[in-house]
């Protein structure tokens, strides 16, 4: 009965019909689940490194060993040694603690302050909203690195200070999302009509508004760990964060850059660690974001 077939251009990008719509959204542009599993494993490994570096690497990451300076990668030193003879792998593993902790602190600062301000802007009415929105505008007018430089210039360099600096720079990001989300939820039918079902303002806020606004924060924060880690390591690369001999990734890169002509490994591997960490957190975060959007769309 069927004489021939024809397949329309698969790249037309038209909305898919109902039958296929469910799967269409999810697969489209998604990092394949294999990638997500891999990324999750990387995240777990990094967390393990940060909690118990001693399990994965023996030896002191700070102890110089001038008998084995700038050894290329070998069976004994998988990632080689730096110019003070320290094992690069050991330093990378121990560095996870510093790099992740600084980034995490910054993200927590951004998320907590940003959420608070965002909810305030979204609920307290027009004047507060206008005012806070302008402040968000002003702060986000400055590049994060420049803002952090300003904070460092005012408060001095140091590990805690760059956490705070990057944390402040990230506040508007969260505040804006939360503000938009708050306004969206506030105007959603189930909140606006909640009053019909006998809910008081307070109850609506606590039972419906807040939970629906806050659910997106952990996901957002996970994605943000990646970008924040980059900003943090940039500052420590510039020498404004932790000081030698701490094994922080950005700092390690900075220390290695003078010897790059002779030895590439002390400069390449910490950077690779940063890149892999950022990718892993971004992939995991985005995956949950999509799952999450799929659930509530």
């Amino acid at each position, binding site marked *: 009965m069927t004489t021939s077939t024809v397949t*329309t251009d698969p790249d037309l990008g038209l909305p898919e019909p109902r*039958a296929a719509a469910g799967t269409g959204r999810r697969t489209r542009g998604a990092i394949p689940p294999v990638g997500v599993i891999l990324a999750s494993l990387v995240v777990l490994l990094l967390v393990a490194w940060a909690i118990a570096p001693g399990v994965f690497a023996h030896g002191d990451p700070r102890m110089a060993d001038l008998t084995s300076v700038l050894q290329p990668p070998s069976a004994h030193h998988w990632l080689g040694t730096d110019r003070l003879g320290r094992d690069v792998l050991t330093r990378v593993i121990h560095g996870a603690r510093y790099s992740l902790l600084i980034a995490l602190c910054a993200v927590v600062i951004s998320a907590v302050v940003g959420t608070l301000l965002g909810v305030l802007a979204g609920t307290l009415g027009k004047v507060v909203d206008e005012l806070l929105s302008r402040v968000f505008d002003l702060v986000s007018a400055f590049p994060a690195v420049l803002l952090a430089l300003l904070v460092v210039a005012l408060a001095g360099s140091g590990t805690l200070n760059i956490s705070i600096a990057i944390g402040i720079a990230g506040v508007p990001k969260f505040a804006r999302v939360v503000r938009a989300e708050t306004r969206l939820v506030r105007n959603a039918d*189930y909140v606006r009509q909640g*009053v019909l*079902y006998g809910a008081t303002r307070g109850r609506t806020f606590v039972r419906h508004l807040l939970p629906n606004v806050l659910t997106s924060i952990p996901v957002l924060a996970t994605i943000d760990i990646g970008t924040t880690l980059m900003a943090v390591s940039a500052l420590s690369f510039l020498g404004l964060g932790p000081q030698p001999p701490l094994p922080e990734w950005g700092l390690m890169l900075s220390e290695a850059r003078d010897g790059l002509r002779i030895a590439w490994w002390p400069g390449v591997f910490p950077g690779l660690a940063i890149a892999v960490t950022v990718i892993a957190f971004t992939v995991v975060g985005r995956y949950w974001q999509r799952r999450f959007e799929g659930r509530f769309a």
Partner: protein
Amino acid sequence: MSTTVIPIQPGTEVAEPLVEVADLSIGFHGATAVAGVSFEVRAGECVALVGESGSGKSITARSLVGLSGPGAEIRAATLRVDGRDALGFRERDWRGVRGRFAGLVMQDALVSLDPLQTVGSAVEQVLRRHAVVPRAEVAQRALDVLASVGMPDPGLRAGQYAHELSGGLRQRALIATAIAADPALIIADEPTTALDVTVQKVILDLLAEQVAAGTGMLLISHDLAVVSQIAHRIVVLRDGEVVETGTTAEILGRPQAAYTRRLLAAIPSAGSRGRRLSEVGVDDSTDDGGTGPVAQVTDRPVASAAGVDVERPVVEASGLRKTYRLGSRRSGSVTTALDDVSFSVGRGEVLGIVGESGSGKSTCAGVLLGLTRPEAGEVLLDGSPWATATERERRPLRHELQLVPQDPLSSFDPRYTVRKVIGENLRPLRLGKTAVADRSVDLLRQVGLDERFLDRHPRTLSGGQRQRVAIARALAPNPRVLVCDEAVSALDVNVQAQVLDLLGDLREAHGTALVFISHDLGVVHHVADRVLVFHRGSVVEQGDVDDVFLNPQHDYTRRLVAAVPTMPTQESTQESTRRSHP
């Protein structure tokens, strides 16, 4: 209006069909969306594809211009477009067909025209693409095309964007882009669905003119009444398969398939008053999936006047006024949404409110529900002030008035299961934990669902099931008045019929008064005892539903009633349905 159908020009029968489709199947990634569909369209003929959502009617129509979507696998015994075998078409061939041989008119021009392109340049795009006229004449021809679809002042309109035009003009502009290259075929996909009924009539007339001028038309619609206005032949689709094909008179007058009969019987209208719209016992309604209507008696008339007590109104509204300011405080204009509106709702009465978009009927619902404070006037609930009361005073009485919204899904907290949705609205009754569970199950049963639905998330339910949950929630605190704001407008006709029947049953069982707001005169005529006609914020006419609709006094009501497409054979159809199911 029913005289619009134009007889097919003699002689066109012998001409080769514009499109010829035999045994067409369309699949997506292995899933079949359309199977074994056959039809032809000839010049000067209007063929309608009719079906509910998911019937595959749009995909079928779009396959004629190679736009059935990414990954669509099209198989057919015959697929001839413009006298050529379209099965071998490549993208380049399709592009030659689109716009030139076949023009596409879609629903809602606001989203179907590029919002960043003026309507004039959209028409010019077609003219230029297909080199219809020499370049120098393109601009002038575009104005001519706009004028030909009845666009007033085309010179001005050509420079405007879709959002600057009214709904009717916008749709005309869309039609202008479709017919600019003078195509032999127009594919009209729900061309009037988003429009007000008076505008719908104008657009249908315009499409009928095109058919009369010899253009072939493939009309896609869910609405048999609309289709009956201009179609010569009708193809009824269901789940991607043809249920029945025939001339309009055959399909409407002597439907052969049970599905078609049920579809026809489900259409609410004056003739269906006091009757059930859905059939009990026919349990192939995959559309819904409720466990069946509550009442198991088929022929019992619904909505008898028993228990209605107009003398003792439960709600009395008087002199309601509400204005909205558009734009900024200084330069914005003021719209009057409600202007001196007064009415009352008797105990157990069904009050219908009809009007076109922007007529103020939704504002009226908001005031009634105590969500919007009127600038003047008062609503009395059981004789005591309601609209002007403080929220503190209102809260203990809130449960008396409940809402069934148009889009139930957005009215459920996305994190909530059906159990929590209903449970939250049982709070005013202050029941114990087990009592809440028992009552929730009881409510679900009343709306034709059961306890299996308790722990489902509303988003996993079908449209009809969601609306049933919304009704169960509204009934939970034993309200005296249910406000239904376009409550069945988004539902397919069969599901709409079931929900309308359910509302009728519940009203009879509980004596709950209904305020039924709808743009659909047929629906209101079916359910309401009395009706208010809204126009620009005022009630232009009110009274018994038969009096108002059958013998309208106000000019606007007359126009409104005249614009409603009615099926010539609807009465007889329903008689035959009744006879076939004693």
